[in-house]
């Protein structure tokens, strides 16, 4: 499949977002950044085919992570895309569970952990 190496990184912190996108690109993935949930939805609507994984921050302006997840699950075209939740907020585990996310990462991220999760869902180009 041509889509299996695309990863969407939804993160409002510009420095983190760009670093992650860079890193995933280095590792051979096509990474796309979105500033918040709203931006992510727009990018998902506009881009076809969908990514193999969404890396989602929780606390973001305009549309936060949980709201994005609700919207995503409501849309049958998007609902199957696995989501890994990352947050600097405490209780990220609990939050990930309630959001039905496939896994969670707490900030500061260990890049190796991120890579491991990405590898579970996507194959590098």
């Amino acid at each position, binding site marked *: 499949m041509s889509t299996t190496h695309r990863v969407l990184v939804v993160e409002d912190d*510009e420095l983190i977002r*760009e670093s992650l996108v*860079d890193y995933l690109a280095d590792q051979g993935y096509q990474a796309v950044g979105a500033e918040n949930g709203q931006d992510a939805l727009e990018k998902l609507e506009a881009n076809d085919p969908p990514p193999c994984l969404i890396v989602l921050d929780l606390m973001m302006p305009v549309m936060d992570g949980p709201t994005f997840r609700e919207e995503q699950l409501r849309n049958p075209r998007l609902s199957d895309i696995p989501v890994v939740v990352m947050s600097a907020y405490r209780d990220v585990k609990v939050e990930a569970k309630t959001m039905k996310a496939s896994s969670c990462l707490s900030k*500061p991220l260990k890049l190796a952990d991120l890579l491991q999760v990405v590898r579970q869902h996507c194959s590098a180009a």
Partner: protein
Amino acid sequence: MDNAHPTCAHEAEAESSMETAVLQDAIGTDGLERELEALYRITGSLSASPLDLDATVQEVTDVATQAIEAGFGAFFYNVVNDQGESYLLYSLSGVPKEAFAKFGLPRNTPLFHATFSGESIVRVDDVTKDPRYGKMAPHHGMPPGHLPVRSYLAVPVRSRRGTVFGGLFFGHADTGRFTARHERLVSTIAAYAAAAIESSMVFRSMKRAERAQSRLVAELRETVRMNDVFAGVLAHDLRNPLGAMLTSGDLLASKIPASNEPETKAVRRLLSSGWRMNRMVEQLLDFTRIRTQGMPLDPQPANLATILQEAIDESAAGQPPTSVVLRCQGDVLGTWDDDRLGQLFSNLVRNALHHGASNAPVDVQVNGQDPASIRVEVQNQGAVPGELIPKLFEPFTGGQKRPSKNKGLGLGLFISLEIARAHGGTIDLRADEHGGTTIATVTLPRHAEPPAPDPITLTEDRLDPMPDHLWRAEERNRLLMESIRDYSIFMLDPEGRVASWSPGAERIHGYTAGEIVGKPVSIFYPPDADAAAKAAAELQKAMDLGRFEEEDWRIRKDGTRYWASVITIAMRDSTGRAIGFATVTRDLTERRKAEDALSAERVRSARAEEAVRLRDEFLALVSHELRTPLASLLIQLEAVRDKSDSCAPDVTLRIERAARSSQRLAALVESMLDATSIINGRLDLTREPQDLGDIVRETLEDLRGAIERAGCDLLTHLDRSVLGRWDRVRVRQIVANLVSNAIKYGAGRPVEVATYADGQYGVLEVRDHGKGIPEHERERIFGPFERAASIRNYGGLGLGLFVVQQIVAAHGGDVVADNATDGGARLRVRLPLDPEAEMARSPSLPESLACPPPTASSSSRTTN
């Protein structure tokens, strides 16, 4: 008398007369009739309107005045109203109120002193001949127009605990009217009055406390919630830049060829500083959580062998693989919180590596044979001094006076022990000074239970919701009233055996007359006390003093205990012969419960205060403790930057990112430190002549990058010569905080900043075009840790506007928030003008600082 409960009063009356009859039968002496009747009327009054103090006091005065056939009687008493203020009130009997209206309240004359101080009863046959009489100016005795008084009897009304509520005063125009018997009767009545006033006061203070408590509980709930939000936000705000820095550092490491050793070394040091700092943040968050809520635990099926291996891998990262030896045979299965146990063992292994001799490995040995509990020993070479061991588990000691640069916070062992304890286990640290080793032994039950909650822990779900709380107040008051209505009277013969019984007594004690008459009074005492001896001693006291009162436990027929107020009165016939005792018992269980509940809530409120204090302390701690590692982080970063002058552009980009993250972190820590000192009341202003427009221009210049990144157009309208004596740095902070808020909440939309003079004030106005601030939140947002928007969307500790408000207030100005008619929030700061500031204006402000220089009253537009 105020019959607040007509039905109850009626019943009580019927019962009273029945009991009177019972008693009269038992005693069979007419001489006591009036006195008994007086007693019953008093208890009846208590029963009918126990909490109507005025009615009770009036009744007491009337009954006593009639019982001793005084010319008139008065009761002067102190009450405390719902606001906690004290009043002197009085009731009169035998004369119309007008007869005393013009005299004012009794003063603390030598005659009255004995009564109002609770010192003694004063009974004189002719008061005008008493040495204490007539000592005070201006009247030297009774003021003109006073009712004639010769016979005088005054009895203090004081509680069993010695509080003087007031005094009962009786007078008669003839001499020698009051006898010892009258004195005894009035003192009994006074005891009842005191009990009634005390009950009423408990009730009132409960009502008062209830209101204070419900406010407090609301505040407490909010504090608990805020503390949690606060810690979460703090975690978020600290970890995000730290995370960005570490990610950039990781990427940087991957970009630098391994051959370039000085550089890879610098990056490695940078990363390890970053992770150490992250550990400190985690520890501080854990510490706060433990202090306010205890250690949270989520036990799941887990394998200790895996937990240990991972913990060792983490804590020994960067060490030679032989530095830690794990001796564990196969899987060790149980129920634990794997994250927390991982943290515990990481701490222990890290400690062992840090303190142990570098040439000998740290030895981790697991004993998992016991089906009930597991033992893990972490051993290193080098013995810790024995006297240091208990200290190691205290927070922030870590065996050192203060945390030094590279030693961490001294929280590791404290948190580890909390984790072990939460699992139902423990950590034992031993130094074998002989063998030169230190062994930490962790004992854990194989299956940990989630920790049992502390009954008054500060968690929200254990606080009753408000309506319920208020309902409880109502219920409590009802119970209180009923409790006061519950009294019994029975008679004892001179030997202390029950001589008569009554329906009230049956209701309270549970015995029928047939079961109890003839039994010793000690049957009502708790069996654990030496009941018979205690009862006998108390009867003796009643006999000697005429009356004995106490509050103590009593036992019902069914063996249940209740808290009772008991008054035992020695009864004598007209010849003075002892004929027995009348015992009046009230069940005060509910009142005692209410008092206990109040003190429980006091504990609760103390905890709320503690929580607030902890939060402030935490803020101070975090900002203070993080400063040092942050400084070292920035130095490491500088070193990396220096070493990579000639690097490829993608390396430079990453270094810049790491630098920006670290600066953000540094700014955050500084602002926390600043907020801490403001919260602690340390805000010293350096006032100098200033031009508001200049300060704003200068600040906006610094913020230009942030404003552009937020996609906001900046519209300024800055009047010239808005002059005052202000603290330049602090006013800059006001501008920065308000503009940062505006671009945060109104991102992508224009932000307007204006300065102008308005009357006595220089005004700074900052407007955004975001959602605006709801009206009900416009005052709240200036409190510390408050925020205008949801935590789900925006980080930030909620200190910005608080700091603004504090700075403005220190300048003698004010700040208000409202919404502009076309939407968006508008914050308006007013600082007092000082017309003389212009004359004194120092030339130290070169025009070049004010850039760009727009003409007065013009708009400039900065677009990105």
